[in-house]
């Protein structure tokens, strides 16, 4: 039967509000004790993990840009990995102690003074985007004419330190700035747009394909080492974006098909600062992820999984284990040149790993359905539990790119201050040893945020608290799996991806 889930809303009278608030007050009192206990235990677990692993594990850096050598572990690898997995599992168990619907809801909807920027938004956007255009033009120009040294080139530094590392961090730690600085939006505004209507049935699939393609280009082409190649890729991206936006209209293109805009939208959903039609508000990190508007199609799920997978992938191929895996596969193939075979192996690994990640996630939805006996479709369950993956991706991103942002940040500053003649040997910082422990903490924090938001989602989906708890089991297992894999990658010694000099 077709049951569009209930749509009615009840107007709350003032008396009910009072009753609700006293009830919320009582619930808060009741839950504070258990929450405090939960946080203390979590804190203890993290502290143990961080203390134990200080100066033992280093972060994976961006592909081929900078490659830190990683120290071996002081404790057996299996123990390190299972401690990480157990931390996530234990946090999920701790979250199940919070069973008060009103309290969970109050945490997820808590927000601080909304202030409106709508009247100034146009101006801010105009200035930001045209500044973006200036930087884009400068970066492309410098890529062709400037020094062909990655650490001194504004093109490479702006792309990898600025857009790949720092801007997503700003998006999930603060708020999504991308709509206000997206240079392509400014460029497109000068063209007549919307010649055809965007085919609705393809939803966000073009963005998924675009993201995987960008990752593939980052791996296969020397974009992070030769500025000229990067400039050509940027020109290609600009051409595709302008043609797409002119054909299908600016808003449909940037909402559905532009991988960067969609990426920043999902990272921005983790952030505490949120902008909607009513203005800007401050919320608890991750509380936007329980919103049912975020994921409305399978392609959205695919995109969020792609965020998690691309970081896992680029982390893996910059380790010794990743390098030897690729060498082994290239050795198995017998046709063609080494370079071509290597590209095939990299591509197959990218696509097949992604399918496994996506399959694991989708299967969890089916298992949840079987486990709870609910009549809600597996598709709906998968949609509602997908946003927490953005928090996991944010954790991975922070773990993988903090070191890069810190070490090459000063170089970016220098290149920006004198873009045409940057110093050939810019200041490159080497992050202290405790940075390595930070990356483990970031991975775990991302997972804990995901566990907590999934908990909130489960209580919105299911009226029975026991069913809500049970519905999370498959996702907790998937998250433990993701944690184990990413902690394992972080513990592996680093290497340059082979065959891609």
């Amino acid at each position, binding site marked *: *039967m077709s049951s569009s*889930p*209930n749509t*009615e809303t009840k107007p709350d009278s003032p008396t009910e509000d009072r009753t609700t608030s006293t009830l919320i007050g009582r619930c808060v009192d009741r839950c504070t004790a258990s929450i405090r206990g939960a946080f203390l235990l979590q804190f203890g677990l993290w502290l143990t993990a961080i203390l134990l692993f200080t100066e033992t594990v280093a972060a994976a850096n961006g592909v081929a840009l900078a490659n830190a050598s990683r120290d071996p572990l002081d404790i057996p690898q299996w123990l390190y990995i299972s401690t990480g997995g157990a931390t996530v599992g234990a946090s999920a168990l701790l979250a199940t102690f919070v069973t008060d619907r009103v309290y969970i809801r109050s945490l997820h909807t808590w927000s601080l003074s909304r202030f409106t920027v709508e009247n100034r938004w146009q101006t801010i956007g105009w200035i930001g985007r045209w500044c973006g255009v200036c930087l884009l033009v400068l970066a492309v120009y410098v890529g062709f004419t400037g020094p062909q040294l990655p650490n001194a080139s504004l093109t490479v530094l702006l792309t990898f330190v600025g857009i790949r590392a720092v801007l997503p961090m700003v998006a999930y730690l603060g708020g999504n700035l991308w709509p206000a600085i997206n240079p392509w939006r400014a460029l497109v505004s000068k063209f007549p747009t919307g010649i055809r209507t965007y085919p609705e049935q393809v939803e966000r699939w073009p963005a998924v394909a675009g993201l995987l393609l960008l990752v593939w280009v980052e791996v296969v082409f020397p974009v992070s080492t030769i500025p000229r190649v990067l400039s050509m890729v940027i020109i290609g991206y600009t051409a595709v974006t302008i043609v797409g936006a002119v054909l299908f209209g600016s808003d449909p293109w940037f909402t559905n098909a532009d991988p960067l805009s969609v990426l920043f939208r999902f990272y921005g959903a983790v952030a505490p600062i949120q902008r909607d039609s009513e203005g800007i508000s401050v919320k608890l990190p991750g509380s936007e992820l329980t919103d049912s508007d975020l994921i*409305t199609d399978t392609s959205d799920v695919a995109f969020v999984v792609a965020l998690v997978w691309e970081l896992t992938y680029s982390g893996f191929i910059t380790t010794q284990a990743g390098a030897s895996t690729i060498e082994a596969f290239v050795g198995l193939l017998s046709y063609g040149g080494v370079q071509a075979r290597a590209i095939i192996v990299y591509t197959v690994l990218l696509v097949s790993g992604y399918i496994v990640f996506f399959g694991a996630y989708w299967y969890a939805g089916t298992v949840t359905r079987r486990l709870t006996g609910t009549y*809600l*479709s597996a598709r709906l369950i998968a949609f509602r539990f997908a946003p927490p993956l953005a928090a996991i991706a944010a954790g991975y991103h922070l773990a993988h790119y903090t070191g890069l942002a810190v070490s090459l940040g000063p170089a970016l500053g220098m290149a920006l201050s004198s873009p045409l003649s940057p110093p050939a040997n810019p200041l490159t910082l080497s992050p202290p040893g405790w940075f390595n422990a930070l990356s483990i903490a970031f991975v775990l924090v991302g997972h804990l945020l995901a566990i907590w938001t999934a908990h909130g989602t489960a209580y919105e*989906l299911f*009226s*029975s608290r026991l069913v809500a708890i049970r519905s999370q089991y498959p996702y907790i297992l998937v998250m433990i799996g993701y944690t184990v894999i990413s902690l394992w990658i972080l513990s592996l010694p680093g290497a340059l991806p082979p065959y891609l000099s």
Partner: protein
Amino acid sequence: MESEPFHRSTPNLRLVNYPSMSETWCEIPPDESPAGTCEYCGQPYPTQNRLILHKGVEHLQQLDADEQDAFTATYSDEEAELRTFRLKALGVLVLLYFGFLITYVIVT
């Protein structure tokens, strides 16, 4: 934890706002028939208890006294089950904690 029967105003399920509202978000397995369907929103439920809980959580204001009593009773029953669950969860946490503690002592 004392059993607070229920709260007056709980939020609605926010499954709405999907672009294609014509789509079916509920699927009943072919070999099953629902124990009941919510008369307020038409959602089917596999067991009577879940239907009662759903109505209490989502449509409390519309329920009559008997239905509210049924909800209170079911909610309290679930509270008892939850208490058992919490005990088990606590047990697993203690096991995990000491298991890892001992492992670390042995290994390092």
